[in-house]
């Protein structure tokens, strides 16, 4: 089922939680809505579910305008952040609940519940109450309950945020597997970029109620359309500083970073990802202000003509606080943004 969002707006008084949003999600895709808290991603999800009424705009499921259709008739499955399992019912009863409400006869409901349990690997836990399950298992019950009525769209609100780090990686793979197996159009909300990038077909990054960019994860990371996306994606965060272009070169303060052509002189915002620096003999000389060992990498803090910057180097580099070394920037890795924050190009 293709989903089309047109000019979707939700206003609370003067505050616009979602502001003129447009988005098309292709059939069978897994899309992550990513953004900081308060960016409007959950509001969007709840409008897709029909639990929040939009102030303006339309939502289409396929060719059908569902904007005014109540949640129970939208053919959606919804998984809540806290799973919202009914604590007094067993796993089986929880999964059967949506079917019983739809007057499916008991025998068939039970069969379908067990089918779902098999899909999410919950066989053998059907008689337990939610309290007796781990967080990951509860999550899978919630997914099974959402899918059992064979919805056309699956919506997940921060599905992994209540799990611990290890379980989170396991569960997100599980979500991807289930989604692929069922082939259902799925939208999930998250504030965790790694989570979004690792399983999504496409990511929509949101800020201030507006979709900043809608792209496949890799292109989004490599080709951010604007400064917000560039800054939001990437850990550690991208280095940004104000750069000057003159005489056919980019300067950071007095240090010449790269010779270029075809760009008018002036001041720009430059962005260089910490991993885009490389240690090399013909580079500019800097001094390590701090060195942080993270395991796989070394994060080295330094200043380039008073501009505080960070570089991510391989952990086998031998350097200590105060040590001098030389750096260059890898080809095509200096991003320049104009005054509005739009990307001009990579140099």
């Amino acid at each position, binding site marked *: 089922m293709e989903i089309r969002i047109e000019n979707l707006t939700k206003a609370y008084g003067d505050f616009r939680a979602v502001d003129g949003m447009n988005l098309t999600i292709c059939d069978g895709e897994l899309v992550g809505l990513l953004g900081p808290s308060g960016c409007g991603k959950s509001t969007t999800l709840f409008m897709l579910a029909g639990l929040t009424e939009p102030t303006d705009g339309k939502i289409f499921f396929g060719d059908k305008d569902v904007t005014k259709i109540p949640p*129970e008739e939208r053919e959606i499955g919804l998984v809540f952040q806290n799973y919202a399992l009914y604590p007094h019912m067993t796993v089986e009863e929880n999964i059967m609940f949506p079917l019983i*409400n739809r007057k499916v006869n008991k025998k068939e409901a039970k069969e379908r519940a067990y089918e779902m349990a098999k899909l999410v690997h919950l066989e053998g836990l059907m008689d337990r109450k939610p309290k007796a399950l781990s967080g990951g298992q509860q999550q899978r019950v919630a997914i099974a309950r959402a899918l059992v009525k064979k919805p056309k769209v699956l919506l997940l609100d921060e599905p992994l945020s209540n799990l611990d780090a290890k379980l989170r990686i396991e569960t997100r793979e599980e979500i991807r597997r289930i989604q692929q197996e069922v082939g259902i159009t799925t939208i999930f909300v998250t504030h965790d970029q790694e989570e979004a990038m690792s399983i999504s077909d496409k990511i929509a990054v949101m800020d201030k109620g507006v979709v900043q960019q809608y792209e496949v994860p890799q292109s989004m990371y490599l080709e951010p359309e604007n400064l917000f996306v560039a800054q939001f994606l990437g850990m550690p965060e991208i280095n940004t500083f104000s750069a000057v272009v003159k005489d056919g070169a980019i300067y950071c303060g007095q240090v010449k970073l790269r010779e270029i052509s075809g760009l008018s002189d002036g001041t720009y915002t430059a962005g260089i990802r910490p991993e885009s620096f490389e240690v090399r003999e013909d580079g500019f000389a800097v001094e390590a202000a701090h060195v942080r060992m993270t395991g796989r990498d070394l994060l080295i803090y330094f200043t380039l003509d008073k501009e505080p910057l960070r570089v991510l180097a391989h952990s086998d580099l031998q350097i200590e606080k105060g040590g001098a070394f030389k750096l260059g920037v890898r080809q095509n890795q200096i991003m320049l943004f104009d005054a509005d924050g739009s990307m001009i190009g990579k140099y």
Partner: protein
Amino acid sequence: MNEKKIKSSLGTILKYVVLIVGALFTLLPFVWMISSSLKSATEIVRVPPSLFPEEIQVVNYAKAWAAAPFGRYLINTVIITVFTTIGVLITTVLSAFAFSRLNFPGKKLVFSLFLATLMIPGEMLIITNFITITKLKWIDTYQAMIVPWLSNVFYIYLLTQFFMQVPETLYLAAKVDKCSDFKYMIKIMVPMNKSPITTIAILNIIGSWNSFLWPLLVTNSDEMRVLSNGLIRFQTEAGSSYELIMAASCILVMPIIIIYLFLRKYVIEGVAQSGIKG
């Protein structure tokens, strides 16, 4: 060190002494009631009184039971208690659900109005309510003793608090699952809040069972009297047959004590709520 040890064990002994004396003071009337109810007519007026009966006279209970229509009183009390409690549970669940989950114009105002009625002493309402019941020609009927007590604002307040603690997402999930409001209330809210609902049921059972003034006002005939009214009447009629009066008192007190002993957790929690939320 040694001195400290003695001091602390003396403290422990003192602690238990105070508690036991307090407990005896609390228990005394109960013990005295049971003991007196089993004494013979001569033993009960003997000076000095004996703590325990020389010869246990269970027959006192049969005598008391026969001396006044206690069977009838008991049936009346049970009928009133059962119907009032069922009714209160229905109105309380419905109202608490409306206040905690539904959105309707004037909700805050109505809720404040409900809470404000908590400040009205029920005792001041008996005059008008008595007139109302008289005008409805309900004097000497069960409904006179049941209907005015079918709603209790404190219980509504208590249950609303519990209903509000149920996460909103459960409601939204149920909505997506095509569950109507009424079905959600019956299938999710009520089973999830069994414990406070049980508390309310028990507090109401105790209250109805022990009620005295209102049933006294709205009944005239012996057939409609409840146990507490019957007992007061019996107190005057039985004169100095204290062994029979004590036996009759036991009949009134014991059912509630048994319920309380089995379900004390709910009773104690319910009453403690009133203090903490005050």
